[in-house]
């Protein structure tokens, strides 16, 4: 793209430099900003020029009065990124931290979403524990799926909840071979409420986990699933105590 020299507002100003200062200042139109964002990804010289102008302008931020945001904002952020701030992070170890292994399965987010839906129609695997009542007829309308991602947004595994059957299934990821004394526990977070346990789980190939139907009743798309690593038998406190390895929002299957 070539423009007449004076269109940059100054003789001798290159188009790159003009676009960089416009972006750093924030004065471009929506379309111009989108174009600049694309250029940032592909053009190191442009990236450097924008960074220089940003650094030059940033002391202006000293002029802006600080404003304490309301507490609800942090609560919403915490619910979005992890079920609860961890007081004493546990040293990460074991198969569930082997993200490389999980990633090596080659499952992208889209593939996982499809996989989660497919889980719902698999023949029922033996339940990890017997339900206390006769299985009800499947109710597809109540089925919810989620793609669980790690703290950096990388998809790790898929989950499918069937409230009618009272069970949850996970996409096969790996055989559990982690150190003794630690187990994954599944949580659900609805809105700003504290995480609610759905029980200790075993993320094994095709396994279906029985979960009391009362715990799944009323779950809606948008609620967030999370998996934390807990002592055998589950969290002793009723809230996640170990590292959260994956989270994902539920959506209708």
């Amino acid at each position: 793209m070539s423009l007449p020299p004076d269109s940059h507002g100054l003789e001798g100003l290159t188009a790159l430099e003009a676009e960089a200062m416009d972006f750093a200042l924030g004065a471009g139109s929506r379309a111009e900003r989108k174009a600049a964002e694309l250029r940032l990804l592909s053009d190191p010289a442009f990236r450097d020029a924008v960074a220089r102008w940003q650094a030059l302008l940033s002391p202006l931020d000293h002029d802006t009065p600080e404003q304490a945001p309301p507490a609800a904002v942090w609560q919403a952020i915490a619910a979005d990124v992890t079920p609860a701030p961890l007081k004493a992070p546990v040293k990460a170890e074991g198969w569930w931290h082997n993200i490389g292994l999980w990633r090596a399965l080659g499952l992208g987010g889209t593939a996982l979403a499809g996989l989660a839906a497919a889980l719902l129609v698999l023949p029922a695997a033996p339940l990890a524990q017997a339900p206390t009542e006769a299985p009800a007829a499947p109710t597809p309308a109540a089925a919810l799926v989620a793609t669980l991602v790690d703290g950096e947004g990388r998809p790790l595994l898929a989950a499918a909840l069937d409230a009618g059957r009272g069970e949850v299934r996970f996409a096969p990821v790996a055989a559990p071979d982690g150190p003794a004394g630690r187990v994954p526990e599944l949580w659900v977070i609805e809105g700003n409420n504290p995480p609610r346990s759905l029980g200790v789980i075993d993320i094994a190939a095709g396994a279906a986990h029985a979960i009391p139907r009362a715990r799944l009743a009323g779950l809606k798309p948008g609620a967030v699933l999370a998996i934390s690593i807990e002592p055998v038998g589950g969290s002793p406190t009723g809230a996640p105590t170990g590292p959260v390895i994956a989270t994902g929002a539920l959506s209708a299957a």
Partner: protein
Amino acid sequence: MSAAELAVLLARVADGDAAAFQAFYGRTSPKLFGIILRILPERPEAEDVLQEVYVTLWRKAATFDPARASPITWVATIARNRAIDRLRARPVGRHAPVEEAYDLADDGPAPDAGLALSQEAQRLHAALATLEPRHAAAIRACYFEGVTYDELALREGVPVGTLKSWVRRGLIRMRGALQGEAA
């Protein structure tokens, strides 16, 4: 809190340390919320953008490069860009009138936090003061309010080309002053 301390916190956030993330939020959110509120004065919208910014920071903390920017510049830039993107996504014509932009030029540094202006902020103010007042006001209006060249030209009653020339000439002059060259 120093840039080095913030960088250490960010590195821990990149490792998924939720406690570090909460500490980082505590240290930086008032500044970011202030920046966002100047661009989006309606609080619910500003709160929404602030939330978006920190969720992004949680996911992208690993991409922070201390060699390229200070931590506070990095996060403030993300906040400004998000707020401006939100502003651009809605219909035009919801901005402060031109008189307020002039007021901004006379605001000077905010008296908050009891902090002395950093040396670099003082140098930047000195550089801005060398410009035509109208040109300096245009730069501040773009930076603080997120107005476009088109909107500002309309407010000022000048052609867009003229407005761009004010701003770009002004920025280059500022850079020259900061580099100690004759502008």
